[in-house]
């Protein structure tokens, strides 16, 4: 959606345009998906990408990390001075300590010291999350929910900016541990890239950039503090009472709909609100509009619901949203 700014963006939000542009140069033809990712990030959430191999998930995560300068407080900046980016390939034999880190005996000090695992980072790409065993998944999910890691008797705080991009592969479900509903609920969004159009694909082939070259081609457009500031700003976006009511109606609607067996949780509703605000900011607005609901509903809500059948999974949520949007579109302006 290429909106014109309808209200002057304040503070850091101007830089968001450059961020999206920056990522858009690498991830072509998917501006909306890029926005979703940034929205999840600004809402202090995490995102689950479900896509076929080779859709650009890793590239996206890497590009995002590369675009932001600054990094973890404790850890020194990496060579390029960007925020730290870690990637974990989830496999069935992965253990929680492989993520969190473990206590290792220090010969010199004669004591166990904690060796931090890959979770201590800013942007984490959890590749093929459904291949790991549930205990690993739950270890990750604790971090995602609480922003902290407990190892032994110590609790380690993660960085303020911790953003997980998990991916899963919709094909090849053998030997996987599909995420249970409770864990899916913690992801703010679940999106899929899908294929790009013919023209875009041609363009991509013509300007092919190897994954390894990404860091050389990506400019650092935002600083770490920008991200923190933007996250703060997203919380302050104005949302009209009618739209809050609309969110309530949508959430309630999913619970009442006869074709939906498990409706949206209250946490889901809160996340929806957070995402709406962040999305408005991504679109250079300091207020939420009805279109934001349309744009986000599927990616924020769909994975939280259980449908009775496939038709319902396609239609039911759409019906709830359509009805609510219809109501909104006919609302009189107050005053």
């Amino acid at each position: 959606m290429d909106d014109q700014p309808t209200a002057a963006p304040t503070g850091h939000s101007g830089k968001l345009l450059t961020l999206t542009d920056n990522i858009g140069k690498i991830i072509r033809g998917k501006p909306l998906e890029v926005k979703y990712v940034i929205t999840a990030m600004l809402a202090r959430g995490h995102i689950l990408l479900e896509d076929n191999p080779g859709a650009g998930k890793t590239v996206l995560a890497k590009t995002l990390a590369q675009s932001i300068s600054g990094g973890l407080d404790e850890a020194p900046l990496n060579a390029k001075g960007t925020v730290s980016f870690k990637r974990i390939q989830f496999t069935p034999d992965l253990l929680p300590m492989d993520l969190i880190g473990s206590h290792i005996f220090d010969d010199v000090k004669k004591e166990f010291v904690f060796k931090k695992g890959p979770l201590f980072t800013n942007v984490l790409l959890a590749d093929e999350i459904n291949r790991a065993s549930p205990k690993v998944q739950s270890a990750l999910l604790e971090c995602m929910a609480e922003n902290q890691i407990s190892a032994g008797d110590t609790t380690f705080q993660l960085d303020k900016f911790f953003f997980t991009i998990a991916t899963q592969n919709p094909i090849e479900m053998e030997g996987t541990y599909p995420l249970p509903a409770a864990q899916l609920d913690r992801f703010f969004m679940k999106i899929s890239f899908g294929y790009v159009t013919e023209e875009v694909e041609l363009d991509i082939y013509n300007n092919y950039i190897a994954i390894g070259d990404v860091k050389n081609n990506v400019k650092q457009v935002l600083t770490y503090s920008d991200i923190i500031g933007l996250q703060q700003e997203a919380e302050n976006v104005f949302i009209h009472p009618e739209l809050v009511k609309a969110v309530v109606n949508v959430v309630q609607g999913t619970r009442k709909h006869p074709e939906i067996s498990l409706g949206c949780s209250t946490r889901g509703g809160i996340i929806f609100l957070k995402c709406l605000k962040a999305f408005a900011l991504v679109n250079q607005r300091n207020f939420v509009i009805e279109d934001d609901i349309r744009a986000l509903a599927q990616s924020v809500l769909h994975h939280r619901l259980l449908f009775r059948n496939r038709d319902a999974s396609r239609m039911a949520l759409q019906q709830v949203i359509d009805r609510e949007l219809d109501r909104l579109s006919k609302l009189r302006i107050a005053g």
Partner: protein
Amino acid sequence: MKEQITTRKTILQLIFRLLFFVVPTLLVVFKTLEQLNSSFTAFNTGVLSQAVYFGFGITISFILYFYRARFIITFPVLLLVYWLLARAISRMPGEVDVFFYSVQFRLFSSLFIFGWIFGFLLARIKFAYMFIAGILALIALVSISDEVQLDIQFLVYNLLPIVAYTLYMMFIAPPLSESIDMDFKKSTKNLVRAFAFLLLVFFAFLTANYFLEDKFKATELIWGEKDGHGEPKEGDKGDKKKGYNEKDGLLEKGNKDGKGGKGGQKPEDGKGGNKPDDGEDGLKPKDTMAMSEKMSQADYVMFCAKVKNYFPDGTPKPLYFVYHYLTKYDPIKESFIRDTAMPHFDELKCDPSTLAMYRSKTDSSVIRNSMATKKMSVITSEVYVSSNTWKHALLAPASAFYCQTIPVDSGYKKMFRSAYKVKSYTSELNNAYFVYNPGSNAQLAEYQAERFDELRTVKDYSHTDTELFRYYTAMPKGPLYDSINALAKRITKDAITPIDKVIAIRDFFLQRDKEGKKVFRYTLTPGPPSDPNIPNASMLRNFIFKTHAGYCTYYAGASLFLLRSVGIPSRFTTGFATIDRSDKNKGWFWFYASQAHAWTQVYFPGYGWLDFDMTVGNDEQKEAPRPDGTPPLPPPEPWLVIDGAAATTPDLKTKRFDVAFGKVIFYNDDYRLEKTANRTIDASVCRVLYGKKDTTLACIKAGDSLIVVSYDDAAKVVPQPRQGVSIDEQLAGFPKPIIADEIHIKMRPEDVKKEEAKKKEENKPEIKSITWTQLFARIGIIVGGLLLLLFLIPSFWLFWLIMRFNTASGAKSKAYTAYRLALYHFHMAGLERGNETPYEYAQITADTAFKNDFSGFMNIYLRLKYANGQLMIGDEDRIRVFGKSIRPAAKKFTGVFKMIFNYFNIFRAQRFFRRREETSTQEQQL
């Protein structure tokens, strides 16, 4: 817990559905049943029990199918039960009971099954009401088609419930029944909506009523007569008449009375009451119900008449009053129809109500066509009509050839609406007392014998005009008519002359069986054919060969075919039987509605058509005491009637003025002057009438068309007509000034218009056999009008939105109205919004097409809407500019003609509103 809620909900839903779907259906079916009952005798078993049976069927099946019972299984089960019951009943002992019960059972089980099917349709099929309404409309049309008299009122009465039902089921019932998910907030909203709709309909009705009030008034007045019962109650009738006159509103002075007419009856009360048979096709043997009902109910005076026809000793010699000759016969319906193409047409075509006062109409071809020369005389009769419906009909003794309107004395105006004088060229042998009535009256018996002797001189019909002979002896083909032929031959085998054959046929009707009981009897309710299994069983056959019971139509029809079988030209005649009950006023006869009659006329060469009434007397029915009223004073004979124009305005002191005239009636003869004469009129003792209302001399202005009447007792010296002297010369002998007794002022054009409009309305019910094309044309106009209105709704909505935009004040409401206008207009212009939000629609669809920056406007609009009204500089201008650009942009994109076409596409408009969910109705309604 959840289960409980769902069942509770469905029970509630069931109850509401029963209430909102089934009950209205039942009501409208009840109406149809009522109508069927009045049209078909087979249904004659009480409409209430029928409705109950139907109701059982529809309710049980609705409940069953609401809970998803299988139709395929349940319906055959029902049929099986029905079949078993029918078998059981047919095996019951007792013959009569079995017949009775099986007929009853068949009727009620069919109703039950009908109800069952309706219930199924309602429970399962979404648009079942369309189907039901269609069936009901069809039934209504079929039963209407049997109706003698069609007028708009009647149609409305019969079809309105069905239309209302369809509208109800379409617009009100679904939201009402849908709203029952315990959400009472929504329910009230829907109730309000339904109520608003009803209110709208009600106002539409009121408006229609307001515009049609005159029409209703006129109709009410006619129906109001029903209550008159012969002796009109002064207050009752007078009130209505006043109310009626009030509508004229011609002269303020004449309007003393209040709003007397407002209390008239509702049209429904009088339904079927005062609708005297027009005799065209109403007197058919099949139509037993209508006939008997009419006969027993309509017991009021239709007219009275003075017939100047006496025996030499002064005893009145009554004559039947002919209305029409029905010379065509429909063997399938067994009904007689009027044929204006009959050879030697001898009816005077004249509507007395169209003749101006004292004007006359003469048709000498009647005399020629009556084909009679012997024993003929001219009989003068005066007819005073009290029934409004009969005022257009000419009722006179056979072969009337002259008709002149005469005034009704003011004291009798309430009783008689109009009067006319007729002259008939009638045989001296003609008499109401022909067949049965002589009784013990020796004089009549003698007269009868003389008549028969006279008529015996007619031996055969060899010298009769062949066309006439062939036309009036034609018989339909078929076994029934063959057996009638055989019967006639048997009856008349001993008779030689035609009159003897006639008498033999009379005797056939008068025969008695071995026990001395009469074989043929008179009844108003001959009932349906005894074997109801044979469809279209012949009533005529039934009457002649089986039941021997019927009323005048049966006797007239049967004797007609018997006569024709033996080669005697005869014809079916309708009119009124004359009964002489009065000793007081000799020559005066009173005609009640129940005296409407049918009989046969037989042709005798040389003597013409003679009335032969073969109907036997009614032994069962006691003659209700129907008194003769007081006959009206005969009007004084005018010696002069002047048709001219006022040359001067009357001098109110001397009461004289000049009249220029070219036409006069001098002793009942019309004259046209060679040159216009100018005479002074003395109006000092004169009555002045404007239209039908009394007024004063001051009303006359120079140039007004006048008819001046002078009576012989008023003028001092009355000149007598002289033979061989031209009227212009005789004019010189007229008194100066001419003393006028009555002056009728011809209506001025503007009043004539009013009067004509009123007359047209009055005439409405009089258009009796409205043709089907006319009917369809009317229905077409009504439906077309409604459709046009329907198709204009999208345009109206556009104008409403434009108006709202133009009148909106403040940036917010301006933006809101512009937003709605744009969405609607762009939608109608050809780019329909699908499931996109308005913003998406603006960006993706509208901007590329209309190029008027809809999305820019939407940015402002959405900001105003959701950002707590952040108004920026220049916003208002942009909103205004956008609002103004909507129509030009759409016009440019779509083109004017396409746009107009689109605006007539109601489905397009309907698609615009389709996504409206129940929560958003309020905004729409505002």
